[in-house]
């Protein structure tokens, strides 16, 4: 029996702050940012939300769709660059809340924005090796952006969870990764905000890794862009994935459904996973999905999925990604400062 995604779930906090609201504070031209980033607003976590709570809600939705005994999950790996603790795994809390049992392998992953897809690869390998029946992989973040920095317009919060196992709603046909030592974006230990190489984050970083991993997988699977119905890329903004699609020969139509960044911003480790969950919410049996994540530092994980008949019976068992995107409350910059803990009390 084939291996792939047995259940999936999304979660996005409900607060949004618009590009206009941020630009107003810093005296910037909002239209320039909106045009340049192709982002209109971003999600903001509430004061009591973090990577653990987002992962829990996404994981709960994935379990609803999978319809399996939670204790049958043999591993949970959470990828994030905003784990609440430096030492103490997020996965222990999430596993306990979701009643996954104590016979379980747990570790937190970090690889900038691709830690969630790295977790999917590990679960896939362990299921394939027969070590576990099911594995839960989660990509979630409450991203940091220094006030006034370009990142502040996009650094958002959200996540998606995937249960990998047999009898899937989407088979994982193949996966591979492309990795180099390229320092385009980083955050040192104990630092609140990341640093980045501005334009250096583009050509030698995002585009090189995304296109290299994509071409590797297309060659390995003997497929071409036209064979796929949907394509999902990591979304630091709206422009990068659009350009990557063009460079590889994918059309705007193939990309459109996954482009959640324009309405919720860049959810870092949750970015491409949320793009994938939004595609699974509408994909039909037999359709093919191509996904490439990107994590600064740097690397890309590429995946090929084929949707199965199971999607029809499982899709409506949990809220859609669109449910969370449209369930929103807009806030001003003052409330944003409060919610993100930027006030010293």
């Amino acid at each position, binding site marked *: 029996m084939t291996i792939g995604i047995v259940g999936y779930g999304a979660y996005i906090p409900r607060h949004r702050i618009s590009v206009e609201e941020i630009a107003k504070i810093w005296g910037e031209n909002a239209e320039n940012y909106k045009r340049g980033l192709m982002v209109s607003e971003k999600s903001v976590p509430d004061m*009591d939300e973090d990577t653990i*709570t987002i992962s829990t809600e996404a994981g*709960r939705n994935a379990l609803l769709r999978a319809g399996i005994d939670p204790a049958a999950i043999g591993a949970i790996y959470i990828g994030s660059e905003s784990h609440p603790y430096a030492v103490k795994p997020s996965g222990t*809390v999430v596993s306990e809340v979701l009643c996954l049992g104590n016979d379980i392998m747990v570790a937190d992953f970090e690889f900038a924005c691709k830690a969630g897809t790295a977790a999917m690869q590990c679960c896939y390998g362990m299921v394939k090796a027969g070590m576990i029946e099911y594995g839960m992989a989660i990509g979630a973040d409450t991203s940091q952006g220094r006030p006034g920095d370009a990142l502040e317009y996009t650094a958002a919060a959200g996540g998606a969870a995937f249960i990998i196992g047999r009898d899937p709603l989407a088979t994982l046909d193949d996966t591979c990764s492309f990795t180099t030592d390229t320092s385009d974006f980083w955050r040192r230990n104990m630092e609140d905000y990341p640093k980045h190489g501005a334009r250096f984050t583009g050509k030698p970083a995002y585009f090189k890794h995304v296109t290299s991993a994509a071409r590797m997988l297309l060659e390995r699977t003997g497929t071409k862009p036209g064979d796929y119905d949907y394509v999902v890329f990591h979304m630091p903004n709206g422009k990068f994935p659009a350009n990557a699609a063009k460079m590889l020969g994918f059309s705007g139509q193939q990309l459109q459904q996954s482009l959640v960044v324009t309405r919720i911003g860049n959810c870092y480790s949750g970015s491409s996973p949320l793009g994938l969950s939004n595609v699974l919410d509408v994909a039909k049996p037999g359709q093919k999905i191509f996904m490439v994540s990107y994590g600064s530092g740097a690397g890309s994980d590429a995946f090929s999925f084929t949707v199965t008949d199971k999607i029809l019976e499982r899709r409506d068992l949990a809220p*859609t990604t669109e*449910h969370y995107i449209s369930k929103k*409350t807009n806030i001003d910059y003052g409330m944003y400062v409060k919610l993100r803990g930027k006030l010293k009390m």
Partner: protein
Amino acid sequence: MVHKSSVPLYWRLQKSRYTLTGTKCHTCNTVYFPPKEFCPACRRKGDIREFRFSGRGKIISYTVIRVPPEGFEKYTPYTVAIIELDEGTRLSGQVVGNPESIDIGRKVSPVFRKFHEDGPAGLIQYGIKFELVAEETPLK
């Protein structure tokens, strides 16, 4: 209320706080939250077993906290409500969201959130809070 620095006490309460696990007496069908290990109605005839609540219920009463206890200053204003759970017991819990939208009789569902942080270096406590069910926008 959990003392700020009581790590073992938080650990002992984890299961009920994370999953709303209480108990049910199978002799008289009474449910308890927080869990009781002994049914005060049936006494030695009681048959107490673990019982997991759905977390769905309605608001019986509520108060908006504007003068908070130590450690909760940054959260004000926030709402604490008495919730009647669908399975039939009442508990107090925090309702997330704008306090002005909260009202007696409104339906709620559970959300997993941070309860409290014991300072920047201490433990982060998590558990179930509640959010209003948006009747006008059904789940899709």
